[in-house]
């Protein structure tokens, strides 16, 4: 491991803007109906959010404040799970989806904090994660509204590209028909440009983590990713990530660290337990950091044959101008079919993760084995195997991204403490987790 050296650290200046954006998004969401905006029920966190940019502001209640509040309130969160389970859904299904279904069946999802209920026009769900697609179907059946889904083929052949782009075109026409609104193709193109740029900026932000000391840790990344999740199709999202990237580059130039020490650099692979997100700060007790992990997945990456992920270029940098609806959708398809290697090349994951260890000067890897996740979880045991066979200290812990009943804080802490101490790390006296706050 590395010597215990104290580095400067400071809070993120961009954090205030992130909070403003969150407020703006929630305000927009819950006033969408009053403004006559389109309201889409769907889990747009991962997929194709800019597809609806041509319809102006639109509301998407799925990842609204309720979801975040539930993650803080374990009792209410467990109630959501139980409601889904009493409806017959198995306990080993994706816990995030059970959380969404529980909210749905308790009429929480669409309940506005300002009173009243939002009335989504339809459900849209991109089929990048099978569990999300099936949840979208259940949303539509329960709310008795139309449902449309688009397969994301995650491979770029002549046939899959044509299929994907044609389906995107169909979704726009379908949306026009079901909402009575016309798609503004210029706004659509701008939205696609924005989504592309946010993906690229996110990848570049993650690449800053190669610096020693790392300018952020995974906890910071997790929080900074929130606007990516729901505003990456908007100019405010792009402006935010330009600002964050500038700030992070400045931190690297000045040697500003995430939390003051860097005795070891770890990766946390797999979606973290959102209800116990403080796990991402646990290495800091040992003066170490989690550099990132699945948070890198939000980037636009070029996958090289040797496993390297390199940040891609924005459409402007590529000299690609979007003049028509077809061009915009082709560019969106390109992003999802070619620049998201964690989904496109599952067999490639072990090699990519091993390469990441070298590229980011990593000392060890922690793999979260999520009891319910299928998508991100694909290949995780192979990742662990290859890392261990290659001499990279690697451990796993079992848990859940959303179900506290599948997570034992004491056991997981015990396991990780043993891992850190087995690598020769000792707890660092004093406060090591509070500096550089921004989450």
């Amino acid at each position, binding site marked *: 491991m590395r010597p215990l050296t104290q580095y400067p650290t400071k809070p993120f200046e961009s954090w205030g803007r992130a909070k403003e954006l969150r407020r703006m998004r929630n305000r927009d969401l819950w006033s969408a109906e009053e403004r006559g905006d389109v309201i889409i029920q769907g889990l747009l966190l991962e997929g194709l959010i800019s597809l609806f940019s041509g319809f102006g502001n639109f509301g998407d209640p799925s990842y609204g404040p309720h979801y975040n509040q539930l993650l803080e309130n374990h009792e209410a969160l467990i109630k959501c799970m139980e409601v889904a389970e009493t409806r017959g859904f198995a306990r080993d299904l994706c816990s995030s989806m059970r959380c969404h279904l529980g909210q749905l069946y308790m009429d929480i999802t669409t309940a506005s904090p300002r009173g009243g209920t939002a009335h989504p026009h339809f459900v849209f769900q991109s089929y990048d994660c099978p569990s999300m697609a099936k*949840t979208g179907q259940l949303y539509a059946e329960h709310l008795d509204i139309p449902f449309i889904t688009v397969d994301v083929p995650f491979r770029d052949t002549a046939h899959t590209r044509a299929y994907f782009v044609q389906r995107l075109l169909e979704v726009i026409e379908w949306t026009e028909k079901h909402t009575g609104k016309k798609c503004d193709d210029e706004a659509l193109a701008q939205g696609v440009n924005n989504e592309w740029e946010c993906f690229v900026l996110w990848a570049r932000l993650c690449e800053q983590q190669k610096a020693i000391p790392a300018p952020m840790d995974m906890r910071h990344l997790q929080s900074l990713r929130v606007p990516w999740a729901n505003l990456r199709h908007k100019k405010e999202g792009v402006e935010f990530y330009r600002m964050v990237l500038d700030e992070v580059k400045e931190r690297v130039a000045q040697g500003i660290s995430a939390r003051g020490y860097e005795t070891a650099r770890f990766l946390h692979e797999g979606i973290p337990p959102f209800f116990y997100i403080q796990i991402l700060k646990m290495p800091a007790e040992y003066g170490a950091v989690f550099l990132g992990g699945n948070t890198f997945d939000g980037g636009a990456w070029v996958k090289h044959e040797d496993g390297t992920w390199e940040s891609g270029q924005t459409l402007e940098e590529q000299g690609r101008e979007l003049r028509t609806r077809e061009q915009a959708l082709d560019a969106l398809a390109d992003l999802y079919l070619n620049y998201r290697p964690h989904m496109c090349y*599952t067999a490639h994951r072990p090699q990519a993760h091993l390469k990441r260890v070298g590229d980011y000067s990593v000392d060890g890897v922690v793999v979260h084995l999520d009891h319910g996740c299928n998508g991100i979880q694909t290949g995780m045991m192979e990742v662990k195997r290859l890392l261990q066979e290659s001499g990279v200290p690697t451990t796993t812990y079992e848990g859940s991204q959303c179900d506290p009943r599948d997570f034992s804080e004491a056991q997981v802490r015990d396991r990780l403490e043993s891992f850190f101490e087995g690598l020769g790390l000792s707890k660092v006296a004093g406060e090591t987790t509070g500096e550089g706050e921004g989450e």
Partner: protein
Amino acid sequence: MPSALDRFHQVVVGRHQYAEEWKARTGGKVMGYLCTYVPEELAYAAGVLPVRIMGSHQPQSITENYIFSMWCPYCRDCLAQGLLGRYDYLEGIVFAQTCQHIRQTFDSWVTHLPMEFSYDLYMPSSLHVPLARECLAGELQSFQEALEGWTGHPIAPSDIEGAVDIYNTNRRLMTQVYELRRGLTPPITGVQAMEMVLSSMFMDKQEQNGLLRQALEELKGQPGRNSGVRLMLLGSENDDTDLVGFVESMGAQIVVDDHCTGTRYFWGEVPPGDDLLTAIAQRYVDRPPCPLKDLAERRRVQHVLTLARDYQVQGAVMVLEKFCDPHEFDLPSIQGALKEADIPMLVLEVDATIPAGQFRTRIEAFLEMIEVGV
């Protein structure tokens, strides 16, 4: 001469021996496949024997380093068979996109058991939209070209026509055998029906067609048996003939099913059409869907209800692979639809092996409940 049903049984228990003998006899290549959405017709047209890779229902731990133990036992059991060398005779492996669990089997297989030919076929999920068929037809074209590259010879349209004819005949004959189960005294048990379908997944279809014709002749004169409660099997992949026999030993008879080692495998033929690949694509789009490909219309619910009515089903047994998310997502819808149709359902969650004592109690109680009309 053994009866056709006996021969099906022999092929199921001696599936590896059959494939090895086929290779020795024909000099052809054998290709494993991991999902029934793989268009076997094309491989067959290339002179390749497609065989479905399946587990052994024996406890194993060899996959622990490769697949998380909370992934379905079937996907782990399949990989285990490869790692244990039981499929060493395969020269190729093909996967068609369905669930992530069986994808993991494919990814790990290709990593640890490299072979001459491996192919990851894109199979759309939104089968309710017309574009899916076009996309699949295009992907079939690429698959055909890959097969041609592997085998070293072109696949002529007449080869595909011949293969489609043999496969359609196979599907038609198996449907005819299933028709015999509609009556009140079916001449074939659930175990025998499952062995018929399973053997079709391992055998040269032309040879199996001969046996199916023989089976139809042999069954024609048989009186059949009225052996209690008429059940349908539903659920995930299920090739556990012991489990089916176990259920039938308690005063029930399985008369029909909706799973991918039953009707979902052979239901529906390749329609006539000028463009052969489009016609093949149409068949795979139209067949009863896997839950992951049943996204808008709940075609599966309708299919299950139709089967239940046509086969005079009194109860349903959902055999659910542990951790099988696709079927777990559909379970409440299927259960609700059956309840509305006044058909009770028992859910049995299975691992590679089954808890016989516990299942016996539950199945007996379920059958008693049906018999007394509770």
